[in-house]
């Protein structure tokens, strides 16, 4: 056992290496992440385009949230932002629900020892594949297959089979949303499936064996064992997916005809990007972009702390509390008895 003095010497002599080793991360992170975040915060209190240097207080927030502001297009800006927020929510919801259900089903099937499935490894590999393809290319792939006119693969095939009118897979507001939900599910179900599988495989197999012996059928096992024990990983998946949904950009931005993105698919990320990506600060709406970014940041922070709260190690917290209590009691005792160390 090292004495207190020895321990102190060790701490003194090596601590500086610890700081040296983690310094590059913190320097780069502050320069390229923290400062841009603060700068976004500052920009959200400043004007747009030519009045970029003026301090306007909370006007950008009141414009995009409530449509009140001195600029001429305040109402239109608010409508665009709220529509983007709505689209984000619709697109996220529409891809998350089928995705989690499908992934959960597949994960349960793939981990079920009783099911004899040839080629399990191959299925896993193929189902994860869409996730590694460039999202921009995926958008291009689907646009080129599902084009609006009869000159594209899907509509051409359907019309060869006797359909009269081509389906507007890209320009119809509802169909295009469904397509984006489908493509998002296509992109992500393999990833979610593998995460859930590793969660299920982490469950003690003797629980399933015991349930089997007691005569529980597979759906009982699923609802009484798998699902409750999978809760932390489900919460994690839900929140990462929500945060990912708030960032949904490549696909909605690139799934379009012609030169411009489709307004029916405009998400918050597209709104932010489109507001500021027109050149220097003097040329673009950095104020609106900043305000929208900060709103997204606040939503993300709330979601993140929910996972953190739900996923914290409850045993460790209980132990810590106990230890503190014990320490207090010890101190009280020492005071009473006049003991010294």
């Amino acid at each position, binding site marked *: 056992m090292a004495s207190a003095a020895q321990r102190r010497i060790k*701490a003194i002599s*090596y*601590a500086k*290496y*610890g*700081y040296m*080793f983690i310094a590059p*991360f913190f320097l*780069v*992170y502050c320069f390229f992440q923290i*400062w*841009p*975040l603060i*700068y*976004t915060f*500052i920009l959200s209190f400043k004007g747009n385009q030519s009045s970029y240097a003026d301090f306007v207080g909370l006007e950008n927030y009141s414009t995009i949230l409530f449509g009140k502001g001195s600029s001429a297009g305040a109402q239109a800006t608010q409508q665009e932002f709220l529509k983007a927020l709505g689209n984000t929510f619709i697109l996220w919801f529409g891809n998350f629900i089928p995705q989690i259900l499908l992934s959960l089903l597949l994960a349960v099937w793939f981990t079920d020892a009783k*099911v*004899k499935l040839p080629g399990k490894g191959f*299925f896993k590999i*193929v*189902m*994860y*594949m869409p996730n*590694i*393809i460039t999202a*921009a290319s995926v958008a*291009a*792939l*689907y646009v*080129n297959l599902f084009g609006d006119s009869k*000159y*594209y*693969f899907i*509509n051409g095939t359907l019309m*060869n089979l006797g359909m009269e009118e081509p389906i507007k897979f890209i320009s119809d507001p509802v169909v295009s949303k469904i397509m984006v939900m489908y493509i998002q599910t296509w992109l992500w179900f*393999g990833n979610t499936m593998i*995460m*859930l*599988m*590793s*969660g299920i495989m*982490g469950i003690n197999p003797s629980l399933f064996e015991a349930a089997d012996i007691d*005569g529980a059928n597979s759906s009982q096992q699923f609802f009484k064992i798998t699902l409750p024990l999978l809760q*932390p*990983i489900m919460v994690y998946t839900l929140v990462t997916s929500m945060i990912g949904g708030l960032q949904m*950009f*490549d696909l909605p931005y*690139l799934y379009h005809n012609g*030169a411009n993105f489709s307004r029916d698919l405009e998400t918050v990320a597209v709104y932010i*990007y489109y507001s*500021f990506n027109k050149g220097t600060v003097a040329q673009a709406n950095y104020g609106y972009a*900043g305000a929208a*970014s*900060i709103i*997204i*940041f606040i939503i*993300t922070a709330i*979601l*993140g702390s929910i996972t953190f709260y739900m*996923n914290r190690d409850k045993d460790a917290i209980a132990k810590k509390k106990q230890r503190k209590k014990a320490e207090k009691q010890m101190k009280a005792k020492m005071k009473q008895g006049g003991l010294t160390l």
Partner: protein
Amino acid sequence: MSMKQQYGQPKDNYHAKIIAKSTGIFIVCVILTLLCLVPIYILIVNSTHAHLDLAQNPSRFWFGKSLAANFKTLMNDLPADAGKSAKRVAAQYSSAFNVGRGYLNSLIIAGCTTGLTVFFSALTAYGLVVYDFKLNSAAYTFIIGVMMIPVQVSSAGFVAFMYNLKLINNFIPLIVPAIAAPAVIFFMVSYMKSSFPLDIVEASRIDGCGEFRTFLTIALPMMKPAIAVQAIFAFVANWNNYYTQNMILKNEKLATVPIMVSKVLGFDKNIDNGVNFLCVTLSILPIVVVYFILSKFIIAGVALGGVKE
């Protein structure tokens, strides 16, 4: 009460049930596999057809003969007697989708970011796990806390800041930030905590090895499995990153593969569907091929990432 009444039929057609269930699951899996693979197959098939053939009948299920011709259009390598409109198409595609340059730019960015990400994340994780210093747990909590902040949140400030620094149209803002990758650090810290014996550091100290050299020659080789997994993911993520690259790289010469694909998507005249498909194929194929070679590692890596704690 007899045994039968209490416990049901003794395993009546138990095997038949399992076979039926397995068959049903197998069919569902085959359908999903087709949904994943058929779009890619159709894409490749269509890139071997000429625009006029596709206009006549876009519903093609087998390879055509025009792959070379489409490729020549994309490379702007037309025969001298080609028509004016064909030349216009070739000029448009070859300037927007310069295959070689796109691959090179993407490779430079993805390669450099991957190297920086894994090296500095391993370094930071080593610092956090091996050394005991005052701000250790605070630093780790910070890293976990910022892990989930999306890039979109700070992108407006990031781009404005890069304009101020005159770093637009430069690879630096795309490469250097890779040094700070909180999620990778988190992964490496948990890997080191579970499988890196700290005694080895003590031993190398006694043998007179310097701290940094211990990290380079002992810790880094021992972390190879974690580094390999994270390197694959970092490479794929940066190869696919359209959002940041498109904000920073405005110059055509610096365009990466995703930017080029988005440009081809934006064409509204002189469109050649065969060449369109060829562009998308060229953007997808390298990563799909690499994926199938490394798929075992990748699947294992995703599974590892899923088990938090």
